[in-house]
């Protein structure tokens, strides 16, 4: 099997995330890392590979600025076989539409030698949180999508997932090739072992430009985005509330008082 995992480099959620003056996410001034939600996709890809035990190749694919190579490196340390980083100044500020185009073209290039059977994604990027790139990728690649998996099962070229939608628990099935996205319910992601970290240094790692994947610079980037951000505003900090210490039941009374004063009772 040939598996591609799409991994995104995102600003650390626990750091002070910011926008730049052109209203794009600041990906340089804020510490970044491999999106935690994409670690689950890497983990599932590795489990599928281990279960298949047939010489499956897992490739980590990342579109992002120079530092984004960290996301690929971490994936290699976790155990994927090779890495591809699509890096091109023209990509900066791309929206979902352009990002999905670049990813799709890179997947097509990866599939030129051997068919890509599975394109795997996280359920959402932790910065944009759109949860739309996997569906867009499926549309662009003309593939079925099997998305938001809470449980993943594969057998030969068959994939079955369980997912919790708003109103039902569903089982979805499809035949490879397909796009698969996984949630953080699928199982803890492994930490890179010391051996993994050492091995990663010797794994193949390529950097591709837009020209390498046949995308015109005019098709991507902020200036051609299909949507436009006019304004970003930091939310004012919440005003400090009243905090009481519970002493012999005083907490419950104060809580009830507060609820009544706000007409919640």
């Amino acid at each position: 099997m040939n598996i591609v995992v799409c991994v995104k480099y995102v600003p650390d959620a626990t750091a002070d995330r910011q926008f730049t003056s052109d209203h794009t996410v600041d990906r340089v001034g804020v510490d970044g890392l491999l999106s935690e939600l994409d670690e689950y996709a890497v983990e599932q890809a590795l489990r599928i590979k281990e279960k298949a035990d047939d010489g499956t190749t897992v490739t980590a694919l990342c579109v992002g600025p120079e530092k984004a190579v960290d996301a690929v490196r971490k994936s290699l340390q976790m155990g994927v076989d090779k890495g591809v980083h699509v890096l091109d100044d023209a990509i900066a500020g791309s929206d979902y539409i352009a990002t999905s185009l670049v990813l799709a073209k890179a997947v097509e290039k990866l599939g030129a030698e051997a068919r890509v059977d599975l394109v795997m994604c996280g359920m959402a990027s932790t910065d944009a949180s759109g949860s739309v790139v996997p569906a867009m990728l499926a549309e662009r690649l003309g593939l079925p999508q099997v998305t938001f998996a809470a449980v993943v099962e594969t057998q030969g070229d068959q994939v079955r997932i369980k997912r919790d939608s708003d109103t039902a628990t569903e089982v979805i099935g499809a035949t490879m090739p397909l796009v698969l996205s996984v949630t953080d319910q699928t199982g803890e992601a492994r930490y890179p072992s010391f051996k993994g970290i050492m091995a990663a240094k010797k794994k193949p790692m390529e950097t591709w430009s837009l020209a390498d994947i046949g995308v015109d610079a005019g098709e991507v980037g902020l200036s051609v985005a299909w949507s436009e951000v006019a304004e970003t505003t930091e939310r004012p900090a919440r005003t400090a509330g009243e905090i009481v210490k519970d002493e012999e039941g005083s907490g419950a009374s104060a809580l009830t008082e507060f609820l009544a004063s706000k007409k919640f009772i």
Partner: protein
Amino acid sequence: MSEVLVVVDHVDGAIRKPTLELLAIAKRLGEPAAVFFGGSEAAAGAAAKLAAFGAEKIYVIDDTEIKGYLVAPKAEALQQLVEKTSPAAVLFVSGYEGKEVAARLAIKTGSGLITDAVDVAAGSAGEGPVTTQSVFAGNFTVQAKVTRGTPLITIKPNSAPPEESAGAGTVEEFAVTISDSAKTAQIVASQPREASGRPELTEAAIVVSGGRGTGGNFEPIEKLADSLGAAVGASRAAVDSGWMPHTFQVGQTGKTVSPQLYVANGISGAIQHRAGMQTSKTIIAVNKDDEAPIFELVDFGVVGDLHSVLPAATEQIEKRKG
């Protein structure tokens, strides 16, 4: 005035509340036209309600060839409807399905997509609607608009109050053709969620949540919730421990809620949890650690043990209600 398509979210014809909110938003942007996927029987029942909340037109798309598959057929059907009606915008409920149908439709129609709007206003003349999003765990608001194609917007539940104001509700059957290639991801089984008897988490006016601090005993949380007519929520720690099903999880990888009141009990207030509740109007926390970060957000906080504070408070609330 151009039509604004609202993709109806329903279960067997029962319209879910966020759709009514979308109709209210659609009215600001043009003429609300509901798009109903389903059989004619379910549609007949739903039509009256959609009309009562402002739908001028109701496009009914027979879902015989659609319902057994994941999102791709719906996107194809909507593409055909968008090409026929050239709407001013298409509105979806932000959820797995709404987002993914919108994502495929964006590529198919060459249209820009904005996800998870919490508000939408009409744009200036000749321009598309202006959306408001809440990003980075609610720390920023972003104003944006679509600049290409048909604006496709997914909107979070609770973004506008539903408005009862009758529209014509003219029903029009819209015939679509679904390609075989769209029918590839099959819904093999679907188990409807059992009703909890409590309000739906994302729609509730009050949410009472519990975290690791419950130690696995959610009874104090549930009793307080019931005394306030609230929905029950949980942190990921509580869900990961197997104490509550994932569908109760509030946060980045669970539900986003924005109720009038959110009560966090035994929850520390990690950024990923905040992402799902930070925009609640009023926030209360009960936590035995006075340094828990959740207290930075609260309007009112009690430093104490939830296992004694909540039952006592519940008793007092019941008494007051008489």
